[in-house]
Structures are given as structure tokens and as C-alpha cells.
């Protein structure tokens, strides 16, 4: 092993210390600027985030916290969704009865189902609002075009996620929404009927459709969503953080497009380069509007 700092620091300390540092690689409650930067950089979940952010980035007015909230609803949905899976059976005979069970016989089931359902609605709403925020602040423009495209795809996935979840209770609301929704898909030119047939696995909504929607809802779409959300966050850093008003930028060349500049001489107060992002330059000032996946590590 190389002589990493914590190895030195913990040598001869208690086993608890050693376990802590074996996991987190930084002090539990970092108080100094260095420790705090380390805490962010050394953490699997936080390292996607820069160690420092612009003050403006954190201002509520800048983003209204919408992207972050969308992400948090997704986290809530994943947790409640996994719990609900323990009592759900994706068959037409059982699905509805399981809903009734969740409402009556399963302890805490009613609240979890409510939370899942309302969070799903909230996620769609928040994603839409987030999209509006991004557009209205011009944050989709170069160099952030592709992240906007990712965002559009994420929005569509969110809608599809919500739609597939809609069928699972197998009640009238679900059944007819799916009948109508898939019939709309059937109007797609040339491939419509095929697409509808493949979506339903049958000519009409039945047990095959329920199973397919279930698999999409609990496995395929969440996996794709997680992947794309990660990409979305990573792109925020790569694209230079939140969009800033031009007036706030130096009038010089490096406006919004990364341009090669000479390595500046290190000055006092320089930040440590993030280890994973050597290209970020000496001053990682990329704020992070959405990179909050570290909340669970926070406390």
C-alpha cells in the first residue's frame, strides 16, 4: 500500500477510527476547508460534485431547486417502489387484491403507496418545471445543448415511467388509461400496430401487458433513468456548471466555451484539482445545480 494520509493518521488509533477511514477516507465532521474539500472529493457519491461552488449557484432564485427536487422525488420513488414490490404480484388476478391488501392488511402499506403515487405525480410536475426553468434562463444554449437533450430524454422517460406504473393497480383508471394510451401509440405511421402489439404482448390489454409494463416499470426504465441521471449530472460539471450571465464572466475570451488558456501560476487560495477531473483547470468553479446525490452521505 501507498502511504495514504489516513493510513498514517490512523496508525495506532482505535479500531473504530480505522474502520471509519477505511470506508470514508475523510474525517467525520470536516471542519477545515481542506478536510471539507476532501470529504467531497473522496466520497463515491459526492465526488461528481466539485469541492467548491459559486455562491450564485446556491442561490435559490437561480434554479428554484427544481432539478434537485426532481432527483429527490426519484430517490423517494425508488425507495418506496422497492418496498411496495414486496407485496405486489403482477397478474390480473392478484394485482388489484394486492392494492386492497396494501390499503388494509399490510402495516404501513397505505402510506407507502400514497407516497409512491403522489411522488410520481410530483416528479412529472417538477421535471416539467425544471425544463421550463432551464429554458427560461437560457441554460440550454451552447455549450449545454447536449445536456438539454439528455434532459428531454429524461422527461420522456419520466412520463413513460409514470405511465407504466399507472397500469399496475389494475383498476379501471389504470386499465382504460392504458387502453387509450396504447391505442394512441397504434396511430404511429407504418409501425403503429406493431409497436402497440409489442407493447401489449397481445392484441388487447391483459396479463401480458401487465407483466411487460411491470418489468419496464421496476427494472428497465429505472436502470436507464439512473444511468441517464448520472450522465446528466456529470454533464453539468463538464459543461462548466450552471449557466452564468455573460456580464458575470470575464470579458475576455473564455466566455462560455472552454478554450485553451495557459496554465496560470498558482496563487494563494487556489483550490485542489479534483482528482477525477484533471481537465477542469485550476479553479473548479463549476457550480452544480443537480449534483445532490450526496445527501444521504451528509449526516
Amino acid at each position, binding site marked *: 500500500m501507498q502511504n495514504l494520509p489516513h493510513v498514517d493518521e490512523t496508525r495506532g488509533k482505535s479500531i473504530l477510527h480505522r474502520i471509519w477511514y477505511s470506508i470514508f477516507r475523510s474525517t467525520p465532521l470536516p471542519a477545515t476547508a481542506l478536510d471539507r474539500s476532501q470529504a467531497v472529493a473522496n466520497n463515491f457519491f459526492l465526488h461528481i460534485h466539485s469541492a467548491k461552488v459559486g455562491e450564485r449557484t*446556491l442561490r435559490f432564485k437561480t434554479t428554484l431547486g427544481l432539478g434537485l427536487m426532481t432527483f429527490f422525488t426519484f430517490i423517494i420513488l425508488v425507495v418506496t417502489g422497492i418496498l411496495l414490490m414486496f407485496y405486489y404480484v403482477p397478474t390480473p388476478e392478484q394485482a388489484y387484491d394486492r392494492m386492497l391488501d396494501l390499503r388494509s392488511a399490510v402495516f404501513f402499506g397505505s402510506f407507502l403507496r400514497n407516497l409512491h403515487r403522489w411522488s410520481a405525480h410530483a416528479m412529472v410536475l417538477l421535471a416539467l418545471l425544471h425544463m421550463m426553468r432551464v429554458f427560461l434562463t437560457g441554460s440550454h444554449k451552447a455549450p449545454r445543448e447536449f445536456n438539454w437533450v439528455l434532459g428531454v430524454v429524461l422527461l420522456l422517460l419520466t412520463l413513460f415511467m409514470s405511465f407504466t406504473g399507472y397500469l399496475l393497480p389494475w383498476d379501471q383508471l389504470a386499465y382504460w*388509461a392504458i387502453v387509450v394510451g396504447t391505442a394512441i401509440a397504434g396511430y404511429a405511421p407504418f409501425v403503429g400496430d406493431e409497436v402497440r402489439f409489442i407493447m401489449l404482448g397481445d392484441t388487447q390489454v391483459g396479463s401480458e401487458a401487465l407483466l411487460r409494463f411491470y418489468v419496464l416499470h421496476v427494472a428497465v426504465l429505472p436502470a436507464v433513468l439512473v444511468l441517464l441521471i448520472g450522465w446528466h449530472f456529470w454533464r453539468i460539471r463538464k459543461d462548466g456548471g450552471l449557466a452564468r450571465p455573460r456580464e458575470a464572466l470575464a470579458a475576455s475570451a473564455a466566455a462560455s466555451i472552454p478554450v485553451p488558456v495557459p496554465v496560470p501560476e498558482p496563487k494563494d487560495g487556489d483550490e485542489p484539482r479534483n482528482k477525477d477531473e484533471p481537465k477542469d483547470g485550476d479553479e473548479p468553479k463549476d457550480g452544480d445545480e443537480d449534483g445532490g446525490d450526496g445527501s444521504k452521505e451528509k449526516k
Partner: protein
Amino acid sequence: MSKIETPDFERLPVNPDKTYGLMCVVPTRTEAVTIETEKQVLSWPEGLLRYLLVFLALFVVLSIISLVFNAPLEEPANALHPPNPAKAPWYFLGLQEMVSYSAFWGGVGIPTLLVLLAIAAPYLESKPGGEGVWFHSCRSAANWTFLTIMGTLGVLTLIGTLFRGKNWDFILPW
């Protein structure tokens, strides 16, 4: 590495086996995303505390909603009796409203165009300016176009949600 003066390794002793840094791969020049113009704060704790606040607020609001309103559960699915009206989830009611005029254009044509338009938006709006500012005057045309589209969808959604009753007839919600 050679260009950077050897720092104080009191706390983080350098690994003697290490002979290169990634920066060395880049000859003489490196890329900076922007030039620092604003005040920076440490994301731990300033950022994370705010994230925590947002999360807690969101969770509290959703919990209260879940406590007060039960998730809807209607009759068991019955392929023989469509409810009247059979409505999709609210976010598709704009679509359903359009579908009630034309199945292809409302359900496939216009939505596809809108998605393509959304994807193309940043490429269409290529003139720089107005980034990071709410309703910047130099982007008013784009903003108004966007708001008009979203507003139209919103109005359609509202009509589909509130103003449509049995047999998809117009009704007043009050």
C-alpha cells in the same frame, strides 16, 4: 508536475513511487472552463446543507399530501365497462384533449413534432446571449415561443382535466 512548485507536504506526503501526474500528459497548455468571476464557497457544508433543506422540505410536503389524500383506487379493471369519461393521468390529458380532435395528429404527429422541436431547441437558438438570466431581453422571442407552447399544452391539460365530463362533453367543474 514540474511547472508547479512543490507544495508543503506536511499533511499529505507525496508518494515516492509516483513519477508523473496526469497534467503532464497535456503539453504546456491546459483548458479552463471559465475564469473565476464570482465568489466561491465550499460545497461542504454550504451546498450540501441546502440540498438537505430542499430534500427535507420536499419530503415533508409529500408526506403531508400522502397523509391527507389517499392514492386513488377505482373499481377493479373491467374490460366490458369503460368508465365515463375514461381519463388518462393528468399529464396526458392535454394529449387526450388533442386526440379527441384527431387521433393521429393529436396523439402522434404533434407530440413527435414537439419532442423534436424540444431536442432541436438549443441548436436552433444558436446565437449566444442571455445564459443564466431569467427572461433575458435578448431571448424574449424564444422565451415567448416556449411559453406559448407550454401554455397551450397547459390550457389543453386544464381543459382535459376540469372541463371534460361524460362522453367527453364540455362541462363546468363547479
